[in-house]
């Protein structure tokens, strides 16, 4: 292997690693706050990428219908409860978020052909269509079971994952899509080409991570999420509703997923079921961090990206095997070094 290939593979690994790191952070966040192992994390990557691809192909993405259906369900579920309790002032925001904005997006797509929109607007519309699915799925699938055991929540996650994969096939078809690169700029680094898109992915991921850091360290809502993760009873006594914390972190997880999908859509061909494998690699990173440590999870995920890249050169047939085998020594080391702690509650 010469330096050129080494750099090329490294570049690839860092790009993928950045995406895995984002997903690992989202997984750790969701688990810490809600105890949900969020297997459908990867589906948001695929939905984000494929929704953007559909918009650019001039099609109405199927996510619109899912958004409308889920939004109406949530509005009905919560609306009935609010009416019964006579809390009418909460009705308008509920309807605007769950029905109004989705209807506006859907209507807008029929009025303005999405192909005429500039790229940033297409990205924004894709995010608007995919991100609200996060809190809606939390409301419908997880919130009624919020106090169930980790195992039950895991089973729900598997169900949500399978449902989203099936719907993905229905919405986007079996063919993969790849969107045009955001930028055509290309540099040369020690004889190896360095794509502008690669730099974009790394910079955007880094900015997102910094943004998340500020959210958690500097804002009261971010602190409330951390507090919920640290001490659920304590957080409830402060008036931080578990449902609010859950919806907030599912919104973040969906946004991270969809944004990651949009970032890598020009680099890899995304199929309706590609998200699962991508999410799983983020999960390996999250496991390296013990589903608890954000920096270790992010570093672990970056390591996964590099390992994947280099192993695809040496033993491409075994690339996935090598990446997922990484989890065994990590688990072994973890089970030997950590003391057994009983699960709370």
């Amino acid at each position, binding site marked *: 292997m010469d330096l050129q290939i080494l750099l090329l593979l490294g570049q690839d690994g860092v790009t993928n690693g950045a995406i895995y790191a984002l997903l690992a952070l989202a997984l750790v966040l969701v688990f810490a706050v809600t105890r949900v192992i969020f297997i459908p994390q990867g589906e948001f990557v695929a939905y984000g990428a494929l929704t953007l691809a559909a918009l650019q192909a001039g099609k109405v993405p199927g996510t619109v219908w899912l958004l409308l259906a889920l939004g109406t369900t949530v509005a009905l579920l919560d609306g009935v409860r609010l009416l019964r309790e006579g809390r009418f002032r909460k009705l308008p925001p509920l309807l605007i978020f769950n029905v109004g904005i989705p209807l506006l997006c859907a209507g807008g797509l029929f009025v303005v052909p999405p192909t005429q929109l500039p790229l940033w607007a297409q990205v924004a519309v894709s995010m608007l269509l995919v991100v609200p699915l996060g809190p809606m799925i939390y409301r419908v699938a997880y919130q009624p079971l919020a106090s169930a055991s980790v195992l039950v929540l895991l089973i729900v996650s598997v169900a949500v994952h399978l449902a989203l994969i099936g719907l993905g096939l229905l919405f986007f078809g079996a063919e993969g899509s790849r969107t045009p690169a955001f930028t055509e700029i290309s540099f040369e680094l020690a004889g190896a080409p360095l794509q502008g898109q690669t730099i974009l992915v790394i910079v955007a991921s880094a900015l997102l991570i910094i943004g998340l850091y500020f959210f958690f360290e500097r804002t*009261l809502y971010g602190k409330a999420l*951390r507090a919920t993760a640290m*001490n659920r009873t304590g957080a409830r*006594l*402060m008036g*931080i509703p578990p449902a609010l914390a859950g919806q907030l972190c599912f919104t973040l997880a969906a946004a991270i997923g969809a944004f990651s999908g949009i970032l890598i859509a020009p680099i890899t061909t995304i199929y309706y079921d590609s998200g699962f494998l991508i999410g799983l690699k983020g999960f390996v990173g999250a496991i390296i961090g013990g589903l608890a440590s954000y920096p270790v999870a992010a570093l672990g995920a970056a390591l996964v990206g590099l390992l994947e890249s280099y192993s695809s050169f040496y033993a491409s047939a075994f690339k996935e095997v090598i990446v997922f085998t990484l989890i065994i020594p990590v688990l072994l080391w973890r089970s030997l070094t950590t003391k057994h702690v009983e699960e709370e509650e």
Partner: protein
Amino acid sequence: MSMSKHPHLHDHEVILDVRHLGVAYGKVEALHDVSLTIRRGEIVTVIGPNGAGKTTLLAALMGLLPATGDIVYMGHAQGREREVEALVRHGMTLVPEKRELFAEMSVEDNLLLGAFDRYRSGHRDQMETMDEVFELFPRLEERRAQLAGTLSGGERQMLAMGRALMAKPKLLMLDEPSLGLAPLIIKEIFRIIGELKQTGVAILLVEQNARAALQIADYGYVLETGEVSLAGPSQELAADPRVIESYLGLGHKH
């Protein structure tokens, strides 16, 4: 202490009125037919031995446990499905026995989160409230950047109380504030509870340390095996031979 001449402060508004409260864990009845009343600016104490149901009582009042009976809080009858968050919004706070601090966060962040619900409903006076809390607990100001998990037992109790006060409560419920603390610190904590009374907040104080609790309270209830066995103005309770025998007697370390 002219107030203690009017033990029940009958002219003050009733903050919490509980009638026939019952709590059961499955078929085991933890509380049976408990009734109590707390008025504005009053300290009411519930004393009793370990396992009498004192903590259960607070958990039920706070909406953490389902309960039967009638609870009227701030003039509103409470339904069967009571939500902790709704009660917090209406000024009820609980300082639990285990303190439930956010251990990996700074003292300052713990305090700020105490005002989370006020922040959420549009109030932006957290910094002034925090200064008031620091005035009450100067120790917390010295330790403001320190992680809550590294505090001493007394400081933890102070932080838990300070965090509860950040919500500007109408009813402050304290579960065993003296638990596991050195006598000097207990004295300090009770002095502060006495000061809090002057601000008009109603205080429900659950204690095993009957002597200290009855000294500071206006009214007291004795809870034994899930039922109120005795009730009365705390001075009368402190003089009651049954209370002296079981809770204040020499050599007793309750």
